[in-house]
């Protein structure tokens, strides 16, 4: 039996004037699944994620989170979602604990003390509990963003280049942590990254975006062979070059 989709995107489109940033994208993410959203810069990955997060209105199409239409009931849909992105650090003028408390209130979390304590331990942030987020290192800020992203035990987790600014050891821990969470079957993850090694290691399925369209989809371990290249990295470069040759934004 197919697990229920935590995210369902149907014929999603977004235009900025004449530019079609996202052009008829459809996909699902199921509980217990990590889906990689790949593509060269300007392919439409962050635009797609922004629409799923409700901070960018689609020109057309439908987004449903656990069957709840985002447009019809934004608050209910986003209560089941959370995200971490390298370009969205938490306010640096609040401490680690204060940030978590504020977002715990936004998500109306029950048992805040216990939940925050649990997350501080999981993401090795206990010693920074009273440290301002702004003075944390990139890796520590990423761990804080992930702790925030887990506060509401989201059914859909969006991770936009979550390991972009951290060292390989910390990145490995984060990948293992997210994979462990997903294995429990509680949530589904939409993961963007330019690190093809990482994508191959964590993603069950990948979607290649180019010029706002999904041009490839499949198992990251088998896709390269199916397209006559050795690695996912090679496949990425091929897709990016094809986009360039077609005259689109790379």
């Amino acid at each position, binding site marked *: 039996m197919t697990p229920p989709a935590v995210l369902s995107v149907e014929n999603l489109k977004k235009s*900025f004037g004449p530019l079609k940033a996202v052009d008829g994208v459809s996909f699902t993410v199921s509980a217990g699944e990590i889906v990689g959203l790949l593509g060269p810069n300007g392919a439409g990955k*962050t*635009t797609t994620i*922004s629409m799923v*997060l*409700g*901070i*960018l*209105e689609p020109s057309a199409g439908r987004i449903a989170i656990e069957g709840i239409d985002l447009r019809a009931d*934004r*608050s*209910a849909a*986003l*209560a089941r*979602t959370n*995200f971490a*992105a390298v*370009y*969205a*650090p*938490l*306010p*640096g*003028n*609040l*401490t680690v604990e*204060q940030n978590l*408390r*504020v*977002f715990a*209130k*936004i*998500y*109306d979390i029950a048992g805040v003390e216990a939940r925050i304590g649990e997350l501080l331990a999981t993401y090795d942030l206990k010693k920074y509990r009273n440290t301002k987020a702004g003075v944390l290192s990139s890796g520590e800020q990423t761990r804080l963003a992930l702790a*925030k992203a887990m506060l509401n035990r989201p059914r859909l987790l969006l991770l936009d280049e979550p390991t972009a600014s951290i060292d390989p050891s910390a990145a490995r821990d984060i990948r293992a942590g997210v994979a462990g969470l997903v294995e429990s079957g509680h949530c589904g993850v939409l993961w963007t990254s330019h690190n093809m090694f990482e994508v191959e290691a964590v993603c069950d399925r990948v979607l290649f975006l180019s010029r706002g369209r999904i041009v490839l989809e499949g198992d990251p371990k088998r896709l390269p062979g199916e397209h006559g290249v050795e690695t996912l990295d090679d496949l990425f470069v091929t897709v990016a070059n094809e986009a360039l040759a077609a005259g689109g934004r790379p």
Partner: protein
Amino acid sequence: MNRSRVAAIVLRILYLYRGSPQRVFPIFVWVAVDILMWGFLTRYLNSVSQGPVNFVPALLGAVLLWDFLTRVMQGVTMAFFEDVWSRNFLNLFATPLTIAEYLAGLVITAIGSSLLSLVAMVVFARVAFGLSFLTYGLALAPFVAVLFVTGIAMGVAAAGIVLRLGPASEWLIWPIPMIVSPFAGVFYPIAVLPGWMQAIAALLPPSYVFEGMRAVVSGEPAPWGRLVVGAGLALLYLLLACVYFASVHKTALRTGLIARYSAETVS
């Protein structure tokens, strides 16, 4: 409206104020400076004036109430600017938080900070210059309420302007009270203004408040009918400001402004 989400916005500002004396400082210090400067000026005017006018309630009282309106407006805008400066919109608006809840949080923080300012001003004016608002009793409450609603409306509209035009436009916001004050008749009767300024004054709720306060201070009956007009205008402006902010937010969702909010990207 979810109370926990409104409380989150208030809690964020409480944390900022608790850990930052430089944020608390202006609440007390600027108002104290205003009261001192205008207090001594009114004392001087009383000493050189032979007439029956007591400048302390007429001018110092007006300064105090105008400062209150300014503090209310800044209570809203400063709480909003904290999110602008920390680039927090993406984190906030990618959550279940609604615009109504966000604005409610800003308004509650403004109530807190402006009440602190008001208490500080009243106590300081009483201790240093003998100005007692208690003489007027509850009659003062409707005047303060109209100024409060006006300040909230100005703050919400200002936040909408900054959301629409970008962080750099905050420099347009700070002078707004200064620009409004000549038309509001804070220190003089509206009747001394030229016709075109009187026409603008008639659209400003504070002008009804200060005209009314002058009447009360000079022992005349409070012009309640006029104050009702001022209150109606203030509520209308509050409604318009909220509609404007919501419409700017809707535009920001359509254009992607929220996702890439910074001085460089907004046009």
